[in-house]
């Protein structure tokens, strides 16, 4: 039967097909992109294989035989079944029914999270910049995804896709970002001890979907840095704020004489000329009704803000802060390097990292009743830094008569509790009433400012906030926030405005100092949704020693022996 075929060495050229295909495929896999090179290998490879198959079938005419017909039937039937099974599974995933049987609902989202994700107004994507995917985290993200198709997530290796990582400003592995539209926000940083938390994620989502606009006003008209780019502009700082969800607008107090009510914060960035008294008064009024002010005042200028600053116990020194330690990194003595930060929300993540301030003036703080102040930026101690009064002389020298020894304070954050207004003790009633009614209790604060500086009984305020827990059935959580009114006014003073200008803003921590200050000022640390962390039920197994022994013996010895002995017995009998 066998035909003796002639040897046809060129027949083996067929092996080029799979070979080329594999080369292209591997190249594509390794480089991660399917560009010209992998395709240049794969397409000829496939072409060779197809050619070979056609040629072979021409040779053997296999399609004419009966077994081929049956075989074709089988192949078609198999393909059909595969497609049908695929479709069934697709539908099964789409319309799946999940029931969490664990007693504490370990794998189910809190009702608040479910509600929030279901009514997401626009699509939201979570980017996890990590190489290893913790199954627990993934499970949580999949749970979110099941609620709404608007929620998506992706794991990204920052090293293999540096473009995306740079877009988000990823600093280390494990950072989780939330992106919606053109807003991007850090949710949390994952590590071995800290897994992805539903509480944080849901609260970030809530913040992001929040419809209220947070406005930051920049005072203009006295030689402040322009908001647009260009010479000494602060366009990068403005852009940074916009990315954080702020709306930035210029403010001209000379014709309005009042700070708009929707101002979350007012920034005075480097005013060169003095403000009118009426303008200062407007800022003072604004502070008194719970406003938030960021003052960045350069040396050698007098914006005439002393009455306002005095009220807060702040005095601007006219001398220049000098730091001779920065020469090694190319910063002159007039640009103090700060590595010493205060214990404050603004600077809590800074560690010993650097920010610098070209031409800065020290700030003196005196304590005033009812005002809490925290120095933010401290220069180094004396031999390295001091406040220089004589700027005319060629040589920078410490002059004990006129100069001030370091460490100097270049920035300070202050808070003043608003006096308790006409809205007395909302707590006891609020706590007992059902949750939908509790929210509007504190709205009147804004309307009735009282300029007296007293420390209010702080105890009543925090308890009031905890009562308005959103229960799943009530109003969407986003509305509750807008009704909150500030309970304190905040002020941040820097003896320098240069650190936030274009070019310098992106160097070292300078930008963070500015952005964190505005964030803290605007009191956007809004009330989080109260989601209880998932906790397993606390349960133990108590076994007596005899029970344990019986279990060990029977499972390790008796049962296996039973199997082996039976096997041996049957084998022996069969023999």
């Amino acid at each position: 039967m066998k035909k003796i075929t002639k040897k046809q060495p060129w027949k083996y050229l067929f092996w080029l097909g799979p070979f080329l295909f594999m080369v292209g495929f591997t190249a594509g896999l390794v480089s991660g992109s399917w560009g010209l090179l992998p395709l240049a290998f794969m397409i000829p490879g496939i072409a060779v294989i197809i050619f070979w198959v056609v040629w072979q079938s021409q040779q053997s005419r296999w399609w004419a035989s009966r077994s081929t017909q049956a075989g074709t039937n089988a192949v078609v039937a198999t393909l059909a079944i595969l497609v049908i099974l695929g479709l069934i599974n697709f539908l099964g995933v789409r319309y799946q029914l999940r029931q969490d049987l664990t007693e504490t609902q370990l794998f189910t989202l809190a009702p608040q999270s479910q509600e929030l994700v279901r009514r997401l107004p626009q699509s939201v994507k979570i980017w996890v910049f990590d190489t290893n995917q913790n199954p627990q985290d993934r499970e949580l993200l999949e749970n979110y995804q099941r609620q709404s198709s608007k929620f998506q997530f992706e794991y990204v290796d920052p090293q293999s896709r540096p473009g995306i990582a740079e877009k988000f400003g990823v600093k280390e592995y494990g950072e989780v970002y939330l992106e919606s539209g053109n807003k991007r926000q850090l949710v949390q940083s994952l590590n071995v001890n800290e897994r992805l938390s539903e509480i944080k994620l849901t609260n970030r989502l809530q913040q992001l979907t929040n419809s209220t606009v947070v406005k930051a006003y920049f005072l203009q008209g006295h030689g402040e840095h322009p908001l647009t780019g260009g010479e000494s502009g602060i366009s990068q700082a403005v852009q940074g704020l916009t990315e954080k969800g702020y709306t930035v607008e210029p403010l001209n107090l000379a014709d309005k004489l009042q700070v708009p009510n929707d101002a979350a914060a007012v920034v005075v960035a480097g005013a060169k000329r003095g403000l009118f008294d009426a303008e200062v008064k407007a800022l003072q009024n604004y502070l008194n009704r719970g406003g938030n002010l960021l003052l960045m005042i350069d040396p050698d200028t007098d914006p005439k803000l002393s009455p306002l600053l005095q009220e807060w116990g702040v005095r601007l020194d006219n001398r220049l802060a000098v730091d001779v330690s920065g020469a090694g990194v190319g910063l002159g003595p007039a640009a103090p390097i700060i590595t010493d930060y205060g214990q404050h929300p603004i600077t809590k993540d800074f560690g010993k990292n650097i920010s610098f301030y070209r031409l800065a003036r020290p700030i003196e703080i005196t304590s005033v009743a009812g005002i809490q102040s925290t120095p933010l930026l401290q220069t180094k101690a004396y031999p390295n830094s001091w406040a220089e009064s004589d700027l005319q002389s060629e040589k920078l020298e410490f002059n004990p008569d006129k100069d001030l020894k370091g460490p100097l304070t270049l920035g300070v954050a202050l808070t003043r509790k608003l006096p308790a207004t006409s809205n007395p003790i909302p707590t006891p009633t609020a706590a007992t009433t059902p949750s939908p009614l509790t929210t509007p209790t504190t709205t009147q604060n804004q309307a009735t400012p009282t300029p007296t500086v007293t420390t209010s009984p702080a105890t009543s305020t925090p308890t009031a906030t905890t009562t308005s827990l959103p229960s799943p059935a009530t109003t969407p959580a986003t509305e509750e926030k807008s009704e909150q009114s500030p309970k304190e006014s905040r002020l941040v003073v820097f003896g320098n405005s240069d650190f936030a200008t274009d070019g310098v803003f992106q160097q070292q921590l300078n930008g963070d100092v500015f952005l964190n200050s505005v964030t803290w000022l605007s009191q956007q640390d809004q009330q989080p949704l109260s989601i209880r962390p998932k906790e397993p039920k606390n349960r133990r197994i108590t076994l007596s020693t005899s029970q344990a022994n019986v279990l060990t013996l029977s499972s390790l010895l008796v049962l296996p022996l039973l199997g082996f002995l039976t096997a041996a017995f049957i084998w022996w009998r069969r023999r």
Partner: protein
Amino acid sequence: MGIVLANIIAIYRRELQSYFISPLAYAIAGVFWFISGLFFVTILFGPDGILPSVAAIDLQGQQLGVPVPLIDVPYEFIRAFLDRMGWLLLFILPILSMGLYAEERKRGTLELLATSPLTNWAVAVGKLLGVVTFLITMVAPLLIFEAIALSGSNPPMSPAIPLLGHFGLILLAAAILSLGMFISSLTDSTILSAVLTFGLVLLLLFVDLIAKSIGGPVGEALGHLSLLKHYNTFIQGIFDTSAIILFASYIFLGIFLTAQSIDALRFQRQ
């Protein structure tokens, strides 16, 4: 319909009988029991086991007066045990499924089956039922041990999660056995059949890893094929219809392909 059912039952009984008089089956059961017993004891009482480590945490908490983290010991135990059992099955099941058809081929009885009036479907279903039943009898004694251990649970645990976990275990086993049966019908070498099945099962395991590295909708679809991922949802205590549908698809696919391959055999012989 009744005839088909009767045929299935006939095949099923023949298969079961062959298991219970085969020394090899008992030897496999013995190995399985020993390894699972080893897992059971080490997870529960071993030096790194749950009971000693939790006891140490409790003691530490009492001495230092710090609050002890909440631990659901029986839940953790049953989850860890079922997890190991899933892995163990991946190694044991190819050995169970390898002989299903390959043995018949070797002995020459497959022609009898293929040309008999029985439909290939009935044969495949009967054989699969037989081997799944044998597996269940292998797992059953372990249930007693688990029941004893869980009876010491304080406060008591509802049986829902262990039952769901074992349900998932049986589904996982049936899916792998069904695919193994198909592979066994392709060859007359039991060893080759076992090796190929093991390879296929490993592939279905690693498809999850591949899927994760690909990402996107393709990765998602690939990830859905993973056996162990769906088994994990069950042992965590989540009842998920899509997982049941996936396992059922695998079982059906195995039976269908087996019937097809025996069909092809008929044509070849003609």
